[in-house]
């Protein structure tokens, strides 16, 4: 591959940040134009990713180069359908968040845009890395800019929130690093090679007792990021106190890091442990769905309400993931994108009125439909998308998740589906309290409707919402091989069906043997492993 | 024989003007001597078959860098001579002594190793034919040494910006 598309996508925002370094800080408009141009460029250069070979099961756009040879770390980028969609989401939301900050940020503009662009590169890198250490590097790179975004440009108790966000996430990632190292050394014991290659890890048959601990380590890291039910408290604080663009990025992309980690690492590398922990995670998710929705119902702060709705939605995503069926996993991924689109848009919406009124209390609003009709329409569409109205994007994700969960366990599906009812309740109540009624506050009577720039931030999101709702087939087709890769590895029941329907060759053999906790040193039967690896080696896509 | 004459003449000129540079009291004179020194060095380059380098020496060194020195000398209108104040801790004598010692030692080393005869210097140009070595040098710079070349250009850019920033009057 001489075609460094991924690197270009990855470093375009960073290049923007570098260019911004040399722009005098007084030239605020120039800074804004440049930042927007680079963010847009980042989106545009990522568009070719959409046209990858949907049928082929291997990694696409692979780039590999030495990084730290002494420990086997490489600069190894590669994507599949799943990460491509997330990358596109990232570049789009990145651009939208940059665009949305035009008037909102007036203080330390230069630093703000630089930080935002660096953050963008960090997120993209995490989605692209096939080297675990590289992934971890980008994972941590994201943390710092976000910390600054919340801590410097936030509102309310911004320092508290920023530090909480930072420390909480850091704790998780440190434990995750331990898990990574465990895999790394285990791999060396078995193969004699020091490597952080994720594709290699995905072919490894790790003994159950190791799997269990590594899974827990990963779980802590990813679950905090998602965030799952008991680990979610940083989210409302961070969301509420972050500036609009920060909230958008946080909701739309950063939370997906956790789910991405589960799908990319936990499930395929640790299939048996994943099975073992299904009840725990599913119940946490289901609790999260209902709990998040109920707490959202009690909120008086607009932004905090949306934040808690995120908890509920992400519970849905996790539920779909750990149903371990292709439909639910597809739905889970689609729901991640949907959450990015609709919750991102909802935060933008809060940002719009916050910019005008500087308050987030729901009771300070009312009757806005009268003064801001276009805004009301946009908000309505995004509300409906968020509560999963059919023919909009949210429905597709929830439908697939619930359908996939239902065949596994009816009770889970029934409880989770009740979250949809509650979702409608809190969102529509919010909508009523803010948009309907008479304009009883004189401040609200003077509000201006969306201007062209603000509308431009929403237009792509609305288009996406409708498109995914009505014609999701291209999207779902792009996920076939990614889902097949994970599910064949983790749930052997679906192996033949997936192989038949998608014409794919799974990259790793399904683990069919029962979890056999063999304490002590792992077997050093290299010949057996080699055979296994041979079999597992990615074949030429000759399936079709 | 001709090359010997040329060499000794040029060597004498170079050294003489070099000494003149460091001994002249007037900095402007120093600059003038420096230019002449450089021109002589350029001729040495030509003798050694490095025409391109010679031209660069004249163009960049004599025509560019030293003009800069001249400018600075003229801009810096000193109220009191720069040599007026002398720090008592200076070790000028030791410095000169050491420099001479180094020269002596180098000479000794050369004399010592000079017993292994090396072939006479043949100007590279004559070996390269009429085209000269400019083209070869260009190839070398733009292929093998491309990255150093780019680094050097970046260095120059940075130096340029740095010089502008440094020399600008701070308001």
């Amino acid at each position: 591959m001489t075609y460094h598309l991924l690197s270009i996508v990855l470093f375009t925002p960073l290049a923007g940040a570098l260019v911004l370094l040399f722009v005098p800080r007084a030239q605020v408009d120039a800074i804004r134009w440049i930042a927007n141009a680079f963010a847009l460029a980042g989106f545009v250069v990522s568009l070719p990713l959409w046209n990858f070979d949907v049928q082929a099961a291997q990694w696409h756009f692979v780039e590999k180069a030495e990084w730290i040879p002494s420990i086997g770390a490489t600069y190894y980028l590669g994507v599949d359908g799943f990460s491509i969609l997330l990358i596109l989401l990232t570049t789009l939301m990145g651009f939208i968040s940059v665009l949305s900050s035009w008037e909102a940020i007036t203080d330390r503009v230069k630093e703000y845009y630089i930080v935002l662009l660096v953050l963008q590169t960090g997120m993209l890198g995490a989605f692209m890395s096939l080297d675990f250490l590289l992934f971890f590097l980008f994972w941590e790179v994201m943390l710092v800019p976000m910390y600054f975004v919340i801590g410097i440009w936030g509102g309310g108790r911004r320092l508290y929130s920023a530090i909480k966000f930072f420390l909480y996430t850091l704790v998780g990632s440190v434990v995750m690093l331990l898990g990574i190292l465990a895999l790394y050394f285990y791999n060396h014991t078995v193969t004699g090679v020091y490597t952080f290659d994720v594709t290699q890890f995905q072919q490894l048959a790790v003994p159950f007792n190791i799997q269990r601990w590594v899974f827990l380590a990963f779980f802590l890291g990813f679950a905090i990021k998602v965030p799952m039910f008991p680990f979610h408290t940083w989210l409302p604080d961070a969301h509420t106190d972050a500036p609009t663009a920060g909230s958008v990025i946080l909701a739309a992309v950063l939370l997906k890091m956790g789910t991405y980690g589960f799908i990319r690492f936990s499930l395929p590398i640790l299939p048996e442990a994943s099975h073992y922990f299904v009840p725990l995670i599913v119940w946490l998710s289901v609790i999260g769905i209902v709990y998040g929705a109920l707490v959202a119902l009690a909120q008086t702060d607009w932004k905090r309400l949306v934040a808690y709705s995120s908890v509920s939605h992400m519970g849905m995503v996790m539920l779909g993931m750990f149903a371990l069926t292709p439909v639910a996993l597809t739905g889970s991924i689609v729901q991640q994108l949907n959450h990015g689109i609709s919750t991102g848009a909802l935060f933008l919406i809060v940002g719009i009125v916050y910019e005008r009124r500087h308050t987030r209390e729901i009771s300070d609003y009312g009757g806005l439909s009268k003064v801001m009709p276009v805004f009301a329409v946009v908000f309505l569409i995004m509300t409906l998308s968020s509560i999963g109205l059919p023919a909009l994007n949210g429905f597709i994700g929830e439908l697939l998740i619930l359908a996939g969960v239902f065949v596994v366990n009816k009770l889970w599906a029934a409880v989770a589906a009740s979250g949809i009812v509650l979702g409608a309740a809190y969102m529509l109540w919010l909508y009523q309290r803010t948009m309907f009624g008479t304009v009883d506050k004189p401040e609200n009577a003077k509000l201006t409707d969306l201007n062209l720039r603000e509308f431009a931030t929403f237009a792509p999101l609305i288009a996406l919402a409708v498109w995914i709702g009505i014609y999701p087939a291209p999207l779902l087709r792009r996920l076939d091989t990614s889902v097949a890769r994970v599910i064949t590895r983790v749930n052997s029941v679906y192996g033949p069906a997936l192989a038949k329907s998608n014409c794919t060759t799974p990259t790793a053999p399904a683990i069919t043997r029962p979890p056999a906790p063999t304490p002590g040193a792992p077997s050093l039967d290299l010949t057996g492993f080699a055979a296994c690896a041979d079999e597992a080696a990615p074949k030429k896509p000759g399936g079709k | 024989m001709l090359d010997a004459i040329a060499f000794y003449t040029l060597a004498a000129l170079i050294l003489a003007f070099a000494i003149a540079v460091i001994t002249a009291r007037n900095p402007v004179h120093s600059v003038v001597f420096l230019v002449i020194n450089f021109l002589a060095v350029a001729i040495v380059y030509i003798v050694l078959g490095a025409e391109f380098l010679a031209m660069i020496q004249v163009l960049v060194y004599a025509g560019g860098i030293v003009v800069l020195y001249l400018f600075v000398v003229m801009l810096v209108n000193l109220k009191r001579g720069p040599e007026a104040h002398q720090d008592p801790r200076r070790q000028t004598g030791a410095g000169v002594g050491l420099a001479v010692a180094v020269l002596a030692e180098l000479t000794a080393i050369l004399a010592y190793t000079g017993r292994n005869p090396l072939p006479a210097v043949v100007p590279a140009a004559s070996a390269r034919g009429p085209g000269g070595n400019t083209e070869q040098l260009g190839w070398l710079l733009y292929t093998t040494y491309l990255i150093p070349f780019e680094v050097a250009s970046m260095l120059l850019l940075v130096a340029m910006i740095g010089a502008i920033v440094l020399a600008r009057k701070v308001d």
Partner: protein
Amino acid sequence: MRLIWLLPLIPAAGAAVNGLAGVRWFGRAAAGAVACLAMLSAFAVALTASIALIRLPPEARAYDVTLGPWLPPIPLATAHGIGSFAAEWAFRLDPLATVMILVVTGIGLLIHVYATAYMMDEPRGGYARFFCYLNLFCAFMLLLVLASNFLVMFIGWEGVGLCSYLLIGYWYEKGSAATAGRKAFITNRIGDWGFLLGVFGVFHVFGTLDFHAVAQAVSSLPIEQSHFGELSIICLLLFIGATGKSAQIPLFVWLPDAMEGPTPVSALIHAATMVTAGVYMVGRNAVLFQHAPLVLAIIAIVGTLTALMAATIGLVQNDIKRVLAYSTVSQLGYMFLAAGVGAFAASTFHLLTHAFFKALLFLGSGAVIHAMAGEQDMQRMGGLRRFLPVTFVTMMIGALAIAGIPPLAGFFSKDEILLQAFSKNRALWALGSVTALMTAFYMFRLVALTFYGVYRGPSWPRHVPPAVGGPATLSIATAHGVRHPVDPDAHGLAHVPQHDLSHGPAHPVPIGPAAHAHEWHGPHEAPSAMTWPLMALAVGAIVCGFISIPPALGGTNALERFLEPSFGGTPAAATVEHARQPRADAEPATADQASNGREWALMLLAVTLAGAGVAAAWRLYVTRPEIPVRLAARWPGLHSLLWHKYFVDEFYGATLVRSTFASARGLWTFDARVVDGAVNGSGWMTRTVSWFSGIFDRVVVDGLVNFVGWSADEGSLVVRRGQTGLLQNYLLLIVLGVCVFLTVYLFAR
């Protein structure tokens, strides 16, 4: 017929035009014209498709159109191995759908025309917005009825819910309207919860979501006569969805509140079309439901109870639209009763006739409200028949139809239902008959209070001589002050000049030249754009019963035969199957046998009951209006119970809503205190520990470091003498180093 997929698209296009361009740029005429034109063309397409379908032989009357994939297939486990979860944009036109599209587009068209005049007082943008919503509603409704699989139907299902939400909350500045809309949506959502789970169950059991395929698959399965198996669970879940949409117990509470919306909306959505979606859905899956007789029994019971309960509430309400709303709930109960006893065709027949006369009644009530400038309380009306002759006549037809007076439409359909119920379960029949009596009573109570008696409404400027009844009622009216005591937002203050211009000739009251433009000048007949739809619907309410005259009256049950294929088999077979049920009546009732005598007897009884109801209402509200007051005083408990609708809203409010909000607040506190507290607590712990270690650090560790630093500081005092700051001295050292190196090189080589 090939173009049936256009049906939902045409109104959707109309909605798009009005929504994107109309709101901003169209005048009222243009917006109304776009909407009506869309409906007209949809009606034309529907008519063409229906005629084409009817021309086919009966067994071939089904037509499928697949537009393209929606959800591509993904493997998913079912009860019988791994299947493939998929959905397509697929439509199916069969007799049942034919009836529905004709109802939706036909009645929809009339209501659109009506609304162009009714909504004339709205501001320009709002007017276009209204028609955008209305068109959108029709699009989703058509999608719902044409869908050939559960998921596409679900799109329509939720879509009509959305439009209902938007239209109920059309006057969003009025708090009660917005709340009613939200209530409707959320209550529907609860039903959708069941519906969605039912859909998953269908997939789990059958591995497909296509109605036809499910019907074929299910017909090979045994009927779950006595046990509550998976089919029963699925059907129950689906029925929960239907209760939400069709306002049955326990989810009926939203429909009366939905009357906050504009009256055409009530007519179209909350009487004629959307609320029947549940009935339609049950009928669409008739074969499936027939395999779950226990659930059918539940449906029948729920339907009957709903019908009875709503009718009793309707007896005492004073708001004209609320009476109609409870009447709708009641009639829907009838339809479910029919479905529950297996008479799907009868239920569809009643759906059809009900659509006509209930739409008529609502539109008529709209005309009355229009005439009274927004007044909805019947106690402030009276004697209106002389002001509103057309409205009076048409509403009278509607009332007669709903009461079941032959030969109007309601008679046939209601009679068919009661007949089928009688053949299954006499208790259900008895309750149904009582309901019929009450229906007749409250409908004529409505007519009597509105059109007969003396005028009790507000006064209007005196220099306009009222034609009839004016002087007598003025003294009463003045007590209420000015014009709009109940509903100022809907009609009153927005009473603008166009209003007068729009209905000149039909105005029964002569307008004096000095009449103030902003004043209301008494009840008046509606403009022709409103009366024409009324008349058209009245004709429908009279004749549409004739399309399915029962054999006992010499007819052929044409509609039922037409619908047979949609319900998966001959009605005879279905009836026979039901006849074998242990709880059903022992006597078989087949079409051929037609125990005409019994049927005649039942009809006679029904007509008698209806007549009794009419007569009672006449006596109580026209001739002896003081009796009802005395009755209410005599049984205050019962009256209060009925007046407050059995306190269901209050009950729900006190239990479900309150517990939800209480748990929400509780969980929030829990979240902030306990969950977040744990996080912050661990943070505090860390800080405390770090404070101690900080002290240790400062005293011991830092002390050590400082000592090292101090010693280095002291030592450097000596060494720093060497740092002269003279460049040449440093250079000297370098040269010295070179010198040493060379020396070593020279001598030690």
